[in-house]
């Protein structure tokens, strides 16, 4: 009947319901003017919109920090956890619900300092989460303390005479971890490059780790060059990688890079003449932790559960 056909038509068309950009917007972001976190948020929103992801099927997990406020502003299911523990919480969500997608938003202190143990181990587990660190090289929310990534000499409230150590290079740590499967780097002042990077990460099979160089104009205005355009960067080029889009860094060099070669990636990570921008390492074949674990589990319905349970009890039965 005609009416049925129409119903069917509507269902077919609207089943693929179009999500509007504003569907990804929650509260008005409360970051400072000029804070790099704004850029990360809006690009994430654009990414989810462009990918037409149902926000109800995304869980955004974070720790504590300015950057970790992101779940309040990105309209998905959000879990704003405790400092340093975003990755275990994310892993829990991923293990429990492979039907959902997980975004983990962290700051440099959150992930690399207090969260360092989880950072190393979650990389090794390789769950399917998109983990982003908004690295502003400072503890911002707590008002200006040194971070592992703060450069040597950085003046902060806990290093008023300058940071004592060379900043930690998170890229080289990550590439030292067995089972790492995806590492990319971008910056908030390269919006197109950042969106391309996050898209690549979004489609990765396991844990996609993206370090995002992010300005904190309030507490670390000096980081990444006062004017972004002089920031020393090296764009990584590979047909399978992230399109080289230098934006404001037009004078930065481009280098061919084989992101499937871990040695090459490790060498690139250690470069001191510029920050590598793009895909440092990618192993698209490594199964995610959920895949590995779920390949061993048997799904039972409720009745079958009860009888399997009874079979277990039989082992302990008397008589």
């Amino acid at each position, binding site marked *: 009947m005609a009416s049925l056909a129409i119903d069917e038509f509507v269902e077919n068309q609207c089943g693929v319901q179009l999500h509007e950009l504003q569907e990804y917007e929650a509260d008005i972001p409360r970051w400072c003017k000029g804070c790099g976190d704004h850029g990360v948020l809006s690009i994430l929103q654009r990414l989810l919109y462009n990918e037409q992801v149902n926000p109800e099927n995304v869980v955004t997990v974070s720790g504590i920090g300015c950057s970790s406020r992101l779940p309040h502003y990105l309209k998905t*299911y*959000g879990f704003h956890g405790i400092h340093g523990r975003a990755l*275990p919480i994310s892993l829990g969500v991923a*293990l429990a619900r492979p039907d959902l997608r997980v975004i983990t938003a962290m700051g440099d202190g959150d992930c690399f300092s207090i969260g360092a143990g989880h950072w190393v181990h979650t990389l090794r587990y390789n769950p399917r989460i998109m983990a982003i660190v908004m690295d502003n090289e400072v503890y911002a929310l707590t008002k200006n303390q040194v971070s592992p990534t703060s450069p040597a000499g950085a003046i902060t409230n806990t290093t008023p005479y300058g940071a004592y150590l060379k900043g930690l290079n998170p890229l080289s740590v990550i590439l030292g971890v067995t089972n790492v499967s995806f590492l990319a780097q971008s910056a908030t002042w390269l919006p197109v490059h950042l969106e391309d990077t996050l898209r690549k990460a979004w489609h990765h099979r396991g844990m996609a780790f993206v370090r995002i160089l992010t300005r904190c104009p309030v507490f670390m205005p000096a980081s990444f060059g006062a004017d972004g355009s002089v920031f020393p960067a090296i764009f990584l080029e590979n047909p399978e990688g992230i399109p080289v889009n230098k934006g404001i860094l037009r004078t930065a060099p481009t280098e061919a890079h084989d992101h499937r070669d871990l040695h090459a990636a490790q060498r690139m990570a250690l470069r001191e003449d510029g920050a590598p921008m793009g895909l440092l390492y990618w192993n698209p074949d490594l199964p995610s932790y959920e895949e590995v674990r779920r390949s061993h589990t048997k799904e039972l319905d409720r009745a079958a559960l009860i009888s399997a*349970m009874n079979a277990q*009890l039989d082992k302990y039965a*008397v008589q």
Partner: protein
Amino acid sequence: MQAKRQIKLPEHIIEIVSDSGEGAQKAAVTFAEASAKMGNGLWTVEVIPSEIQPPPHTTGATSGNRIRLADRPVSNAGDYANLVVAFNEMALLSRIEAEVLADDVVVLIDSIWANHEDAEIRKQYKEILDGIREKGGSVYEIPMEEETLQVVEDPYRGKNMWCVGVLAFLYKRDMDLLKEIVAKTFRKKSEEVLEQNITLLERGYAWGEKNLDFQYVIDVFATDIPQVVMNGNTAIALGSIAAGFKICSMYPITPATSASHALAEVMEQFGGMIHQAEDEIAAAGVAVGANYAGVPTVTITSGPGMALKTEFQGLAAMTETPLVIVDVQRGGPSTGLPTKIEQGDLLHALYGSPGDSPKIVISPSTIEECFHIMTTARKLAEEFRAPVIVLSDANLATGQQLFNRPVLSEDSLPPPIDQNPVPAGTLPFDWDETTGLSRRLIPGQPGGTSVTTGLNHARTGKVVYDYGSNQMGHRMRSRKLAALKQALTPPRVYGDEEGDLLIVGWGSTRGAIEEAVDRARAQGHSVSALNIQFLHPLQPGLKEIFSRYRKVMTVELNYSDDWGDPLIDEETRRYSQLAIVLRAQTLVDVDCWSRVPGRPFMPVEIYRVIIAEMAKLNGQVRPQTKTDTKQEREISHGVASYR
């Protein structure tokens, strides 16, 4: 063959002890399983060496089991052992030193040491046995090693089954049943090994038949209800599966880990998994994430691991995320006595998290309860959107007990993950103003996107900073406990509803306390017992119950200062943990007697406390309520032997 003297007993406590690695534990487990299957009441408890491989032939190397066998169900490991099978005299000595043997104990010991080449060993062997005899015990020197060597080359891998054979004769066990069990035990080994063990079993039996002139008769008791036998950690594992937990995220720690081992064996067959995390913080984090995502997840740990989960307990309370944590308590503080029992984590469970983090705290008192409590815990966590801490302990963990086989039904399983659409704008913390309860929104649920945060938040889930909302959030989280408490019933008094003395306990001490109370009551003392399962919120009606006794005191396996100790008086005394909680709740002058012996209480120890207290209540001079074990004497007299 002459007829054997038949000694009829209501119960017997047997210990089988050897050097670590010689298989006394396997012997005991085999014997116990057969006894359970025959229908005896039973409690077994492990004797665990302190190290993985301590120097052999030392008291520190003693490994084995205690089996309490009875003609009725038993609830604890009992008092002094009646019969000991010792593979060497140092193993025997360790039990003498622990003061756990009856004066008239029957000792079966390997005769090989009597003629050992080392004069020192011969001497100490003789001295130790003489000591036993002096006190009134009897000793049977039996050719364990000699006989075993007839069957196998390495006596360390055979003595144990030969001894089971002897015990099978002594206690009239069903040999077919035993053989079945042995076959199951060695199913992964070679045919040859199995056959050797069966032969040893048979030869042991035959040796007993030929050389011993008596047999014990302990009736079995009839029950129509099917029984199971297992230890508490296995019960927690199977109970977790029955409760519908899908994930156990954990980090190894004694004495909790064996529960996870049991889960690791089977959980994948139930569509679940265990995840060994990098540490306890991550284990808790994974559990919070998975529970938030709607999948029931438990995390199992012990003292030091609890310490590390403190922050996540607070997050679960604040975000109202269901989170079940099992704490199999061990000896503390700090690393303490990792393999030994204590009930030292009650106050941590109640008050460990900074700020006001209301939690539900419950404690199983039997191995059967270890099974069922997991369903209770899951349901409470989900209904009240709160952390639930289950306080088990090392005694329940490794003790074995018979109990009614659980009848499984889908009721215990959680409903499927709620993915029903909700109207847009549905609040994630839509507190009922009276009960504080609210419906949880679960990721994936259409219409429910919202943020969950550990910061102070309004009903919308959004962060707010004002006085009113902070007071409100606290109020709602706390109110849930009031709502739960109103649904609880007062605990049932064991014994008379009123009288002179009420002994209050929690957790695994229940069996020993009730048995001690039984004995004292049999002697005409007016004493009752109370076990509290809901520790936070406390079960209602306690003040009223307490008011019906002249004196109320707790008996706990944790530390309190003793009356009469130097500097200790009403001002300075630090009470045991439940006593503190009860005093604050009821304002009744709840006294306490508590110890940290690293082993379960014997009923007789509690019995002595009761007698002393009764004497005091009746105005008789008997001020000390200490048991008079050797250690206690040493402590009071400042003897240096334990320095």
